């Protein structure tokens, strides 16, 4: 059952071979056994999960079941979930019981999908290894001495370890795709604006986007159908007609032009990752896809641009954490300013403070034009590169990350080397394009390798088609870590 696709689980529920309560109980048992090892969940609450499962079973009994009613899912702890601790991986919110549901949570509830709990993450989604979480690092299920990637590391690890059939994640600079790659699962960051950000704790609002993380592209398509849709509560939510992301899964790939940006295969790419991606290109060619070379000449600037824009937005977004209305407040202080400063000093971890400081600096008087405005202009150049590239290809393909998982602690003291992990994922966030990672092999150490697809705006169905066809002829995505 733990290996079943969402479609198979839904069929089992529809045939009354299993109830949602039974499904949830099985996964809760597995979570209970594995979480002490992997630390993938911050909060598990069996009573709440089973209550939601009972509701799902009632929905089905009343003939109100949708395609995934009764199938459980794990939610990243960045989504406000009424009545559940919603910590965002931070001491600042270690006691924050959300008083309302994020739009994404509402949609999964309406679809009758019980929550298995809240997954661990880098503090405020700032990190690429899940080591910045106040609740401790998550371990990679393929080798517990290694990181799972981040910031949606708990989500990726729990799906890889079969502690949940699927999970939600968020991606500001690669936080769905990079951990999906490092844990050997499939994850998709939709076009900016497709999924509502309402109730999703903000990091960098012009880049943040939620998406599905699961075992396969087929599962991601089903989840995307639940997650997307207009929400008046998010001012950047797009008013578009509802799409069915399953519709193109079975389309043949003959004639699909996959663009290979030469910058994504240049220096800095691990040779084993390069070889696995090359092999994947070979598989796609056999399916009829046509590789074409494209250029993204400004993509090398994505990291410096991102580390101006994301911290600038974060320094503004995180100013709300002041110890007045919710969350942590320092126990001792002399006056109001002292209360703010001590609360924020004690409540935020090092990486979050670092990014707030960068943001405050680049936005400060005298530096705004040189940093913030310059970064916004280069952001435009990076987006224009993609527009140009999509004139000669239908989809861009490359590695998700420059290497496989690294050891816990290996990069924790070196922010710059940590930031370089997101070299290939950040450009899609800056441009607002959809991006996806799927497993395409393993290195000599037995650690998973991720293949990245970047599509044009609203090309999710096409990307899922390419990924699904690839997954029909390969089995990387169905491998699970041994001994877990």
């Amino acid at each position, binding site marked *: 059952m733990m290996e079943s696709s969402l479609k198979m689980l839904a069929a089992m529920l529809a045939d009354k071979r299993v109830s949602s309560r039974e499904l949830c109980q099985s996964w809760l048992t597995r979570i209970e056994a594995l979480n002490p090892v992997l630390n993938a969940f911050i909060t598990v609450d069996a009573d709440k999960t089973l209550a939601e499962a009972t509701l799902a079973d009632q929905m089905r009994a009343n003939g109100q079941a949708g395609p995934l009613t009764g199938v459980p899912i794990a939610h990243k702890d960045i989504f406000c979930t009424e009545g559940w601790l919603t910590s965002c991986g931070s001491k600042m919110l270690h006691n*924050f019981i959300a*008083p309302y549901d994020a739009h994404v949570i509402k949609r999964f509830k309406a679809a009758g999908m019980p929550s298995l709990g809240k997954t661990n993450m880098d503090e405020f989604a700032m990190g690429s290894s899940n080591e910045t979480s106040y609740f401790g690092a998550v371990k990679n299920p393929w080798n517990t001495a290694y990181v799972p990637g981040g910031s949606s590391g708990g989500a990726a690890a729990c799906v890889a370890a079969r502690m949940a059939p699927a999970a939600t994640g968020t991606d500001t600079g690669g936080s769905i795709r990079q951990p999906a790659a490092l844990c050997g699962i499939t994850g998709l960051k939709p076009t*900016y*604006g497709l999924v509502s950000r309402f109730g999703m704790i903000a990091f960098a609002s*012009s*880049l943040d986007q939620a998406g599905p993380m699961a075992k396969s592209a087929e599962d991601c398509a089903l989840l995307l159908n639940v997650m997307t849709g207009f929400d*008046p509560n998010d*001012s*950047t939510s*797009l008013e578009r007609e509802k799409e069915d992301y399953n519709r193109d899964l079975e389309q043949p790939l003959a004639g699909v032009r996959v663009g290979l940006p030469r910058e994504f295969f240049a220096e800095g790419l691990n040779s084993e990752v390069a070889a696995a991606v090359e092999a994947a290109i070979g598989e796609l060619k056999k399916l009829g896809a046509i590789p074409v070379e494209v250029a993204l000449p400004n993509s090398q*600037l994505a*990291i*410096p*641009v991102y*580390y*101006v824009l994301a911290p600038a937005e974060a*320094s503004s977004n995180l*100013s709300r954490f*002041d110890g*007045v*209305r*919710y*969350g*942590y*407040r320092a126990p001792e*202080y*002399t*006056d*109001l*300013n*002292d*209360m703010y*400063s*001590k609360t*924020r*000093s004690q409540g*935020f971890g090092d990486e979050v*403070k*670092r990014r707030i*400081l*960068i*943001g*405050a*600096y680049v936005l*400060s008087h005298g530096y705004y034009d*040189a940093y913030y405005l*310059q*970064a*916004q*202009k*280069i*952001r*435009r*150049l990076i987006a224009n590169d993609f527009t140009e590239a999509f004139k000669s290809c239908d989809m861009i393909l490359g590695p998700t990350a420059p290497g496989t998982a690294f050891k816990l602690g290996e990069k924790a003291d070196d*922010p*710059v080397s940590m*930031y370089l992990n997101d070299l290939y994922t950040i450009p899609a966030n*800056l*441009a*607002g394009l959809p991006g996806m990672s799927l497993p395409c092999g393993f290195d000599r150490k037995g650690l998973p390798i991720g293949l990245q697809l970047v599509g044009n705006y609203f090309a999710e169905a096409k990307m899922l088609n390419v990924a699904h066809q690839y997954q029909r002829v390969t089995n990387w995505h169905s491998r699970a870590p041994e001994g877990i």
Partner: protein
Amino acid sequence: MSLSPDDVKRIARLARIEISDAEADVSQTRLNAIFELIATMQAVDTRDINPMAHAQDVSQRLRDDVVTETDRHVTFQQIAPAVERNLYLVPKVIE
């Protein structure tokens, strides 16, 4: 460019984050490494390029000027650090 420990303390003050001298020293080294990375974008010629603030060119929607939210202060204040008579408590700011 490079930041001095005093610069770090000045920014920390702006951001309302208390920072000790020792922390400012460590932060300075790490922040300077990050600013070195950021500096690589300074050389790019961006004359006549329109800054891109957002991924989609959409304008802000307007909604009808009607009440949409109900009063939930009791729920919201249950999770506040200090509340008295429906008010959030903070240290005295006016003598």
